[in-house]
C-alpha cells in the first residue's frame, strides 16, 4: 500500500511537469496563438496607447473619458444593474465583516469586553468576519467585476442578466443568513465551511445562476480568442462549485479524512477561486489602464495552467506534522514550492508591464491599487511556498504568523485589486466621476499603512510565538504574555484598514447618489 501511494505521489508530480512541458512545447511551436495580437484584444480601435483611468482627475483623463463609447455602452448596459447591485452588496459585507474582524482582534487582548454577548465571543466574531469577507465581500465583488469585464473582453453583452441578478440576491441572502446562524451558535464547525449546509443550498443555487450567466456570455462571444482574464474567471466559476459541492455534502466526510477534505477545500477556495478573481482582474486592468498590451502574453498560459496543476494539490500543507499520512503531506509541500513557477510567470507579466510605465502608476489611483495588489500576490505566494517547507512550517504552524500570511493574500492582494477595480469601473458604470478624489488617496494610504502594521506585528510576533511553542522549557504563560503587544498592534492596523473601508463606502454611496452630469457635457 505504501509503495503504491508513494508511486502515485510521484505520478502526480510527474504529470504536472509533463503537462507543463507539453504546454511550453506548444507555445514555442506556435500551436497555441498567444501573442501581441491576442493581448491587444482588450483595446478597441485606437484605444491602444492612451491611458484610461476615469478615477483620475487629470486633465488628459477627463478629455479622454468623454469619448462616446458606443460599443462599450451597448455592451455594458444589460449587465450594468447586476454589477451595480453586486458591488453595493459587497461593500456592505466588507464593512460589517471588517467590523467583526476588529471586534475579534480586540477580544484577544480585552477578553472580558462584551463577554455577556454571545454573538461577539471570539469564536463567533472571527467566524462571521471570515465568512462575510470571503463570501460576502471578495466573492460578490469579484463576481461583479468579472460579470463586467467578461462582456467587455468578449465584445458582447451579458447574457441572462435577470438570472444573474436573482443569483446575486440569493447569494447575498445566503451569506446574511449564514452570518446570523453562526452568530447564534449554529455552525457546521469546519474552517471556511461554517455556514450550515442547509443555508449553503441557497448559496449554491445563487452561485450557479451567476456562473451560468457568465458561461452563456462566453459561449456567445464575438471574438475568437479568449483573453487571459476570461480563462481565470471561467475556470474559477467551474472550480468553486465543484469545491463547494463536494465539501458541503452532509454525512459524507468523517474524522481526519474530513480534515484533508477541509484543507483541500479551503486552500483551493483561495487559489482556485479568489486568486483567479484577483489575477484575472489585474490582467485586464493593468494593460487597459496603461494603454499597452501585457508584456509577454504567452507566458500567461504558463501561469494559468501552472496555477491549475500545482495549486490544486497544496492544501495539506495545513496539516504538516499532523495525523495524516506522510505521502500526502509531502505531495502538498512539493506542489507548494512548485507554485513559484506560475507565480513568477504572472509576476513577469504584470510587474514588467507596470515597471515599464511607472508614470501610469503615479497618475492613476486605480492602477495604484491594482498593481499594489499584484505585488502583494507575488509576495504572498513566495511567502507561502517558503512557509510550506517542513522546517519553516514547524515554527509557523499554529501561530499568528499564518494569520498575517492569510491576510497578505486575501486582503493585500485580492481586496486591494478589487478596490482598484471599483475605482476604475464605477465611473464607467454610472457615467459619473468620483466626487472626492482625495478620499481615494486617503483610502490607499490607510490600506497600505494599516496593513503594513497588521502584517508586520503578526509576522514578527507569530515567529517568536512559534519558536517558543517549539521550546519545551518555555511556559505557555510566557508565550501568551509575549504575544500580547503584537496582538494590540494588529488591532491598530486592522482598525486603520476598516477605516479605509468605511471611507470607500461613504465615497461609493456619494457616487451613487451624485447627479449624473447634464447631456453633452464632458463626463
Amino acid at each position, binding site marked *: 500500500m505504501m509503495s503504491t501511494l508513494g508511486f502515485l505521489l510521484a505520478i502526480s508530480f510527474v504529470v504536472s511537469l509533463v503537462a507543463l512541458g507539453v504546454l511550453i512545447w506548444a507555445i514555442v511551436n506556435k500551436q497555441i496563438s498567444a501573442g501581441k495580437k491576442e493581448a491587444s484584444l482588450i483595446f478597441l480601435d485606437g484605444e491602444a496607447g492612451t491611458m484610461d483611468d476615469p478615477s483620475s482627475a487629470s486633465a488628459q483623463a477627463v478629455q479622454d473619458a468623454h469619448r462616446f463609447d458606443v460599443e462599450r455602452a451597448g455592451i455594458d448596459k444589460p449587465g450594468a444593474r447586476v454589477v451595480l447591485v453586486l458591488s453595493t452588496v459587497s461593500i456592505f459585507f466588507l464593512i460589517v465583516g471588517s467590523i467583526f474582524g476588529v471586534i475579534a482582534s480586540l477580544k484577544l487582548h480585552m477578553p472580558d469586553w462584551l*463577554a455577556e454577548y454571545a454573538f461577539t465571543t471570539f469564536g463567533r466574531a472571527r467566524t462571521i468576519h471570515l465568512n462575510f469577507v470571503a463570501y460576502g465581500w471578495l466573492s460578490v465583488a469579484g463576481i461583479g467585476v468579472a460579470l463586467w469585464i467578461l462582456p467587455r473582453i468578449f465584445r458582447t453583452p451579458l447574457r441572462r442578466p435577470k438570472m444573474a441578478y436573482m443569483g446575486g440576491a440569493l447569494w447575498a441572502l445566503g451569506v446574511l443568513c449564514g452570518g446570523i446562524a453562526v452568530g447564534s451558535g449554529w455552525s457546521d464547525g469546519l474552517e471556511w465551511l461554517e455556514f450550515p449546509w442547509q443555508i449553503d443550498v441557497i448559496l449554491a443555487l445563487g452561485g450557479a445562476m451567476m456562473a451560468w450567466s457568465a458561461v452563456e456570455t462566453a459561449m456567445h462571444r464575438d471574438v475568437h480568442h479568449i483573453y487571459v482574464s476570461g480563462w481565470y474567471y471561467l475556470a474559477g466559476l*467551474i472550480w468553486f462549485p465543484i469545491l463547494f459541492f463536494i465539501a458541503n455534502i452532509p454525512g459524507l466526510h468523517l*474524522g481526519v479524512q474530513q480534515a*484533508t477534505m477541509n484543507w483541500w477545500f479551503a486552500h483551493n477556495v483561495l487559489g482556485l477561486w479568489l486568486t483567479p478573481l484577483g489575477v484575472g482582474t489585474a490582467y485586464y486592468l493593468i494593460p487597459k489602464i496603461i494603454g499597452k498590451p501585457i508584456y509577454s502574453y504567452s507566458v500567461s498560459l504558463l501561469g494559468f*495552467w501552472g496555477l491549475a496543476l500545482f495549486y*490544486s494539490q497544496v492544501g495539506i500543507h495545513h496539516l504538516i506534522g499532523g495525523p*495524516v499520512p506522510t505521502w500526502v503531506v509531502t505531495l502538498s509541500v512539493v506542489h507548494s514550492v512548485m507554485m513559484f513557477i506560475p507565480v513568477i510567470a504572472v509576476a513577469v507579466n504584470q510587474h514588467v508591464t507596470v515597471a515599464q510605465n511607472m508614470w501610469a502608476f503615479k497618475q492613476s489611483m486605480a492602477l495604484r491599487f491594482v498593481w499594489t495588489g499584484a505585488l502583494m500576490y507575488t509576495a504572498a505566494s513566495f511567502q507561502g511556498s517558503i512557509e510550506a517547507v517542513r522546517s519553516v512550517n514547524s515554527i509557523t504552524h*499554529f501561530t499568528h504568523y499564518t*494569520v498575517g500570511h492569510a491576510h497578505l493574500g486575501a486582503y493585500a492582494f485580492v481586496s486591494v485589486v478589487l478596490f482598484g477595480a471599483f475605482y476604475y469601473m464605477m465611473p464607467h458604470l454610472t457615467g459619473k466621476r468620483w466626487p472626492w478624489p482625495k478620499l481615494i488617496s486617503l483610502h490607499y494610504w490607510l490600506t497600505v499603512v494599516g496593513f503594513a502594521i497588521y502584517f508586520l506585528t503578526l509576522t514578527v510576533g507569530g515567529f517568536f510565538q512559534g519558536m517558543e511553542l517549539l521550546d519545551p522549557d518555555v511556559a505557555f504563560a510566557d508565550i501568551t504574555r509575549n504575544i500580547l503587544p503584537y496582538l494590540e498592534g494588529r488591532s491598530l492596523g486592522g482598525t486603520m484598514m476598516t477605516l479605509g473601508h468605511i471611507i470607500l463606502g461613504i465615497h461609493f454611496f456619494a457616487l451613487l447618489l451624485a447627479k449624473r452630469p447634464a447631456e453633452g457635457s464632458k463626463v
Partner: protein
Amino acid sequence: MNKITPLLLGAAGILLFATLMLVILPGWQMRTADAPPALEPYTVQQLSGREQYIANGCVYCHSQQPRATGQTFADLARGWGRASTSGDYAYDSPHLLGTMRTGPDLLNVGARLPSRDWHLTHLYQPRAIFDWSIMPSYPYMFEVKDKAGTDDVVVKLPEAYAPAEGKVVVARQEALDLVAYLLSLQRTYPVSESEAGMRDRGFDAVIDSGKQ
C-alpha cells in the same frame, strides 16, 4: 486559448485529479483502518457538549493534534499527550483538529485536567486561575442565582470573582455538557505500529516502524 469546452474540461479535470490525490486516496487509506478498540464513541451528553465547543468556536484557538517527539518535545513537556493518529478521530464529525494555538492543545485535556469543577471555574472566568489568560469568559453559559437548587451545580469561585451578596453561580446545561465533552478528550491508550505509521513522519530522524 480559443475554445470554452476544452478550457473548462481541462480545468475541471485537473481539480478532480487533485481531489483524487488529496481527498479520495488519503480517505480510503485512513477510513479503511479500524477504530482503536480502546476508544469509546461519544455519549449523548458528550456529543451535546461537542456542539457547544463548535458553537462557541473553541477550535479557532485550540488545536487537537499533539505533535510527535521527532518534531519537538515541547508538546509532550506541556502534557498535551502522545502524537495523535487518525484512529483517535474515528468518531469525530466534524473534525476539530484546529490550526491555532492561541491556547493549548486539547486532545488530552480530559487526562491532564480531569476535574469537572476546575473546568467550570475556568469556563466562567479563565482569569480566576490564570491572570495572564486571554481566553474569553463565558458568563452566558452560567446563571447567577440567589440560592442553589437541589440539582444545581455551583461553580467554585474565589472571593474576587464570586458574585456579590452571597449569590451563587450555577452552571447551565450547556456548560455541563461542554465540560463532559472536554473530560472525554483523552487519547492516552497506546497505538499500534500500523496506526503510528499513518501520521506525518516527515520530521522523524529515522523513519522506522513503531518508534516515535
